[in-house]
């Protein structure tokens, strides 16, 4: 199979998912409301005189994104369970890895939208200056998001067909989210503190290595997670 076919088929799968989401808009609205609520809960769960906003903001940002991403990932394959849509998808004359890639693109778009709304809200609620570091921050967020959405998409294909899927996905996924999350929180903290970019170079490299390794593995392993 040529690469353009793989990408074309992946886009068809992603487009289908995004169209379903665009027409109903329930999941994305729920996820955005969820992000706002988590940020509000954080505001009341701390003592603003004891811990400064800049110190706490990176943790708040990443905890919020972690939970929102898990909610989004649960949805990806849940969609396919109705009317046995997954069987239809598997019968399509396309490679299994393009199904995975399509799901990954759709999930990334979904989580990215949540993040695009979440970051300004964080800046608004917690008075963090994000405009001067917008570029590098977007880089950190993108690299970390690709990392855990990659693993999450692979795992949600499995957990969706188990008992208590909503609980199992976070239990399996969180240990894998922790390394990218640690690097992302450290890098975000440096950015918010207006430190030079050279200080976060190491974290960015680790994030990139993690992304490359897990995208490769997930593409290889995904066929094993769907029925033959």
């Amino acid at each position, binding site marked *: 199979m040529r690469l353009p076919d793989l990408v074309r088929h992946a886009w068809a799968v992603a487009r289908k998912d995004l169209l379903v989401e665009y027409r109903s808009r329930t999941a994305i609205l729920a996820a955005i409301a969820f992000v706002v609520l988590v940020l509000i809960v954080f505001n009341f769960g701390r003592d603003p005189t004891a811990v400064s906003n800049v110190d706490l903001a990176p943790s708040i940002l990443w905890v919020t994104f972690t939970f929102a991403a898990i909610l989004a990932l649960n949805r990806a394959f849940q969609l396919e369970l109705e009317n046995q849509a997954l069987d239809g998808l598997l019968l399509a004359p396309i490679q299994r890895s393009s199904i995975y890639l399509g799901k990954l693109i759709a999930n990334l778009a979904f989580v990215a939208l949540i993040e695009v709304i979440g970051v300004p809200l964080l800046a608004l609620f917690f008075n963090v200056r994000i405009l001067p570091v917008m570029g590098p921050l977007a880089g950190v967020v993108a690299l970390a998001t690709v990392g855990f959405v990659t693993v999450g998409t692979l795992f949600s294909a499995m957990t969706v067909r*188990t008992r208590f899927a909503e609980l199992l996905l976070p*239990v399996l996924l969180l*240990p894998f989210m922790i*390394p990218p999350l640690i690097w992302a929180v450290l890098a975000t903290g440096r950015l918010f503190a207006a430190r030079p970019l050279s200080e976060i170079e190491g974290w960015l490299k680790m994030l990139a290595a993690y992304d490359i390794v897990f995208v490769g593995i997930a593409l290889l392993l995904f066929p094993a997670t769907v029925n033959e």
Partner: protein
Amino acid sequence: MRMLRVGRWITALSFLLLAGVYVRALVYTPVERFQGLAQKIYYLHVPAAIWAETAMILVGLASIFYLFLKDPRLDRFAESSAEAGTVFAAIVLTTGPIWGKPIWGTWWSWDARLTLTLFLCLLYVGYLLLRGAVADPAARARFAAVLGICGMVLVPFVHLSVYMFRTLHPMPIVLKPSAPSLPPSMLSTFLLSLFVFTLLYVGFVVQRYALSYLREQLEAAADGVGHA
């Protein structure tokens, strides 16, 4: 069943030898100058840590071969190795704080190494939970293999993190690029202990393997009765 008995004998022998290791460690091995008697836990903690991680790597390797060969024996081995690994991870996480209290003055520190050992333990728990949540044996084996491979890949990231963070944890003194830096008598006690833990791992895995085999036989028999 013969295999189960063999496993029991190996385990019994290794428990006996473990007592021997402790006689050697307490009577015939010098007391470390700075840590005093607390250092004696090293002979338990480090071999357990080595096997907690090695077990994960073996789970991953067995999983890779399972996806190619679809041999149920590999799946049974992966399951057994994961359960043995859980036990060793639990030993590491129990002995660590016991040593940490007198030496660091705290039971737990959010040090990279401790945190990631904890996540290794949770990885095992997730793996075993996933196995428990899938009813179909073929799907269970495939899903577990996917998670096992991802787990194995996560271990090097765990190791990289150890060297990236400032850490309270003592650096490796045996498994490092340069020669081991401890007295020969300590090294021989340590190597003896490592051998005993290897035997313990083999004993656990052989027993657990035999149990999975028996359970499968029982399930097959029950199915036969059900269909008749």
